[in-house]
């Protein structure tokens, strides 16, 4: 079982955020190059004209076959960032929950050793399926009373994160009054 399952998700998030930043720079570069070319004076030095053309060509190449990024407004970009943030909150929590459930299913494998052996396999299968549907809040409470004695505030932090995740998952429901 991977002991650091959140790392690849976090890295993917950093990549996505930075990719958006670089794209914005490229679009700005390309637009400036286009403007510079259009406002070129015939009397400019040959070298300046060459540089202008090359920059314009570079801009076009960088955005070749990209039909969305150079048309978006700043507002669309800001909204895209927010959507990406929300998606990663959901993805991080899903990965974390998967990790917890896997942990309990693996610990539950001891059941396979009970007697009679006829019962063992069927019992384990049923238990495993049930664990898949354990409520996240209850799993956290279970951990709080056992492995996290002395560090209960970490479980409380996790619960806060779960509440935030639930709010995001429900479309940032403005009327969500329940705490859980």
């Amino acid at each position, binding site marked *: 079982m991977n002991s650091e399952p959140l790392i690849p998700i976090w890295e993917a998030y950093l990549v996505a955020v930075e990719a958006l930043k670089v794209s914005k720079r490229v679009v700005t570069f390309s637009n400036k190059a286009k403007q510079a070319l259009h406002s070129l004076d015939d009397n400019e030095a040959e070298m300046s004209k060459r540089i202008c053309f090359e920059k314009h060509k570079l801009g076009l190449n960088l955005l070749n076959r990209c039909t969305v990024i150079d048309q978006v407004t700043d507002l669309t970009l*800001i909204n895209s960032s927010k959507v990406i943030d929300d998606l990663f909150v959901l993805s991080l929590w899903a990965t974390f929950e998967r990790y917890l459930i896997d942990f309990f299913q693996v610990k539950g494998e001891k059941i396979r050793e009970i007697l009679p052996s006829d019962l063992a396999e069927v019992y384990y299968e049923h238990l495993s399926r049930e664990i898949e549907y354990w409520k996240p809040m209850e799993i956290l409470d279970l951990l709080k009373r056992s492995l996290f004695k002395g*560090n209960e505030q*970490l479980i409380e*932090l996790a619960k806060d*994160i779960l509440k*935030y995740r639930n*709010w995001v998952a429900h479309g*940032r429901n403005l009327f*969500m009054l329940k705490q859980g």
Partner: protein
Amino acid sequence: MDIEFERLENEAVRDTIRLYLERVEQLYTPIKQWLTTENLVIVSSRVSTIERQAIYKVTQLTVKTPEEETLAEIKATSSKVIVGEGLIEIEGWFGKETLVYMTDGGPQIMKPSRNDRSKQVRVQMYKGIDIDGWYWIENSRRRRMHLVDQALFLELITFVSDYEF
């Protein structure tokens, strides 16, 4: 301080938000000075902040160059945050940076002591929190925070806008 609430889940939240907005104002004062010394223009406006437990109006600072180009918007976005006590977001066309209000050295966790692995010691989760105030997280994996001062703040404006001072 009178707060314009559009929605409020319960009264306990009101006090939290009041304290949060006071702390935001405490940072806005030096921010305005720092930006003015750099010849940048600050425009205040009122916008809504939407949280799970309340919707209320806050002051947003828009930072512009003398040529009217918008560099960044500074806004109080959240009174409740996982490891601290409130967020201020600085957002520009190039990116977004977040400031967190930290108190009492920040959250602590129990870890096995380096000298004796069977004993537990209490350590701070984040390095660099000496006084209560607004901090920037340099790198959430390295867990280091920096108190916001003029140099750091101007760097953050550059981070979000590509503007060179």
